[in-house]
């Protein structure tokens, strides 16, 4: 058995050493929020954090990750799904199909840790993930909102609190 430290827990897996981290997370550890998009580190759907740095897990052999390194996936970004970026994403209705969005949020979270007030150029440089639906402008607006910018980004989306009952 091999071990990984994922979202604060040490977990066992039996994947071959050349298995990309992505497939260990998805198939051995059941964390399917991290997506397969290309397998060649092009699209960023598989972005997770390793010791806080954004990593494209589809092209990283699991053998290259030590048990002491802390892996964070979208499921572990915040305990309650209320990371400022997740809140901004909801406020601005960023996702369309949503498939790339885990990777987008993880890439953005790493950016904000590095640069709490990113410029447009910082965002362009850090967020190289592919979205085919075309959410880029709302992604940009949501990153800025999470960084303390405008609360509506001019979108004026009406949020009606979902009733629990």
């Amino acid at each position, binding site marked *: 058995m091999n071990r990984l430290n994922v979202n604060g827990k040490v977990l066992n897996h039996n*994947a*071959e050493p050349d*298995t990309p981290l992505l*497939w260990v997370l998805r*198939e*051995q550890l*059941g*964390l*399917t*929020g*991290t*997506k*397969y*998009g*290309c*397998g*060649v580190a*092009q*699209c960023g*759907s598989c972005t997770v954090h390793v010791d806080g740095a954004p990593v494209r897990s589809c092209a990283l052999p699991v053998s290259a990750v030590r048990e002491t390194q802390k892996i964070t*996936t*979208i*499921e572990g970004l915040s305990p309650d*799904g209320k990371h400022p970026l*997740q809140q901004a*994403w*909801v406020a601005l*209705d*960023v*996702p*369309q*199909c*949503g*498939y*790339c*969005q*885990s990777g987008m*949020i993880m890439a953005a979270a790493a950016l904000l840790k590095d640069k709490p007030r990113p410029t447009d150029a910082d*965002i*362009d440089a850090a*967020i*190289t*993930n*592919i*979205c*085919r*639906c*075309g*959410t*880029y*402008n*709302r*992604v*940009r607006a949501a990153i800025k909102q999470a960084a303390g910018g405008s609360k509506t980004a001019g*979108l004026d*989306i*009406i949020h*009606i609190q979902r*009733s629990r*009952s």
Partner: protein
Amino acid sequence: MNGLQTSDEITVTRRDFLAGAAAGSLVLGVHLPALAQGAAAAGAAVLPPEINAWVVVQPDERVIVRVVRSEMGQGTLTGLAQLVAEELECDWSRVSTMYPTPGESLERKRVWGSFSTGGSQGIRQSQDYVRKGGAAARMMLVQAAADEWKVPAAECRVDKGVITHAGSRKRATYGQMARAAARLNPPAEVPLKDPKTWKLAGQRLARLDTVEKTNGSQVYGTDLKLPGLLNAAIRDCPVFGGKVRGVDSAATLKMPGVKKVVRVGESAVAVVADTWWRAKKGVDALNIDWDLGPHAGVQQADINATLKAGLSAEQAAVGNSVGDVRAALAGAARRIEAEYAYPYQNHATMEVMNATAKITMSATGTPQRCEVWTPTQNGEGALAAAAEAAGLPPAQCEVYKLHLGGGFGRRGAVHDWVRQAVAIAKELPGTPVKLVWSREEDMTHGRYHPITRARLTAGLDAQGDITGLHLRISGQSILAGIFPQNVRDGRDPVVFQGLNAGGGEAMIGYTFPALLVDHAMRNPHVPPGFWRGVNMNQNAVYLECFIDEIAHATGQDPLALRRKLMARHPKHLAVLEAAATRAGWGQPAPDVGGQKVFRGLAQMHGFGSYVAACAEVSVSAAGELKIHRIVAATDCGHAVNPQQIEAQVEGSFVYGLSAALYGECTVKDGRIEQRNFDTYPVMRMDTMPKVETVIVASGGFWGGVGEPTIAVAAPAVLNAIFAATGRRIRELPLGNQSLKRA
């Protein structure tokens, strides 16, 4: 995506078990368990009786709206729920949605109508009967209360799911009345609200499906978990039309986790393993002997030459004809001619093709039931494909839909991946098997945007006014590849999308003294498909860039020329004026970063909506293009959720400009050369322009939103590039062309 059928659905119809009631008729009294959307794997959830096919009200006041059109990012799930809730007068905070299954629909004589989610039809083709579903349910709930209170229903009022009667001071909730309402007969007459009085529809409401997409909990087809699930990877013959001659799987069968190697049809081999990664490695280790078939020698240059020859062919199917173009051109004082080309493109959905299939055997050891879990734009089409692949009647099959990780037309008309998954599952009866394509498999086995070329010839009189226009299209027909029965005498009517004289779906916005639009069909072996925007995409490049060429050649302002030609097309002109005005056409655009900014225009009509765009670009001396700002206007008649329309319009520029800037699949030795995003680049954040959307909801009709704007993205930018550089780009993608100043 044009037309309601899919090739798979036609198979169902042929089997003749679909004879059913008109879509939207209300069926009462029968309760069938439905699968909660997003929880397909969890099994059937038992619900209280429905009010009608569209509405279930639970005792705790939760309202479940049934939606059969698929959610693939375009927001239809929320939009349709808004329309039902508007008429139902329920409490929006308690609304959730559910996908009925295609199997349930067939059992109920297609009570929910078409499942097809393409052609930008999700809302416009079902708005009438879903609104009636909501209105009828409201009427029945009110009637149930009125009956109990022994007062006239007309004296009762409804607000957010609460029924009141002023005279008797009675009050009841929908949850309290649901059971009684479900027993009533549906009303014969179901009047609908005037859209001007809408309270929920037409509002900028947040989507119902956002939170799950921000925390990793949204279950896509690739994420599905089922007890005992095995995973499959596949390799199909790299050349379309080729076959597997033989396969040596000795090395694969020794690999960890590998369970089985399966031949799939004549052309593919799959490996089934405990995990997908092990299955994929198993596929890589196969030694397959391919019979590459009759097309293995086809090169891109051959295809281009075939299409070029079509530009001068005698035989061509006519799409639109006014007056005598040949006479007009022969007698013209001046002629302008240009040739354009539009390449093959892959849909490149972020989620690759995938399906999970399970075959259950009878006690006597024969297949008895086939179940499929898949992201599809047409649940009924997926069901028909599954039934045919399983060799079972559709009544013994079922499809559970999952939200799509992108559709764009790839997941609607042809369910090739479903057929493969079922074929694999047949070899492992009793075991659910999830087939997931690799990105390389997805890129090389698509249903591609058709390849076409065009030659445009305009005749001008001595004053420079157009006397006649001939637009000859040569190239591939989608219908010939997918619905050949709809091609008559070599004429594919969908080829002329956006260039039609009338019909309300995709009409040309200009009047010329003489016009001929015709098509020489040339079908290479690469399979075509409906690709978001479909044939409007290339037709807009051909028409809108050529109009721009005529404007510049005759010294006219491109907007002024269009105004002259569009006098009899006021709705087309209104959106063009809206885009031009907002952009500031006629005033110089401010410089950006020391670069001069130039504008280009384009307009089209398609999928029932009028669209226009003004692009602002700069091109550096070295030829570097920057698209700064797009202003887009759209008239879709009624606007159900403006903030989602804006999202679709914005996304249309990503899809359309990705195609214009980079999108090209080329053929070498019969196969598609591009294999992943490194060789098939798409637009990313750093090239995304600002997009300003002007919604001109003129009312009185229902137009589509997801696709039409894509068509104007490329020509608006190409026309702006000409304004900036004097270079006329006539072959896409742009990335192949130099933009250095001419």
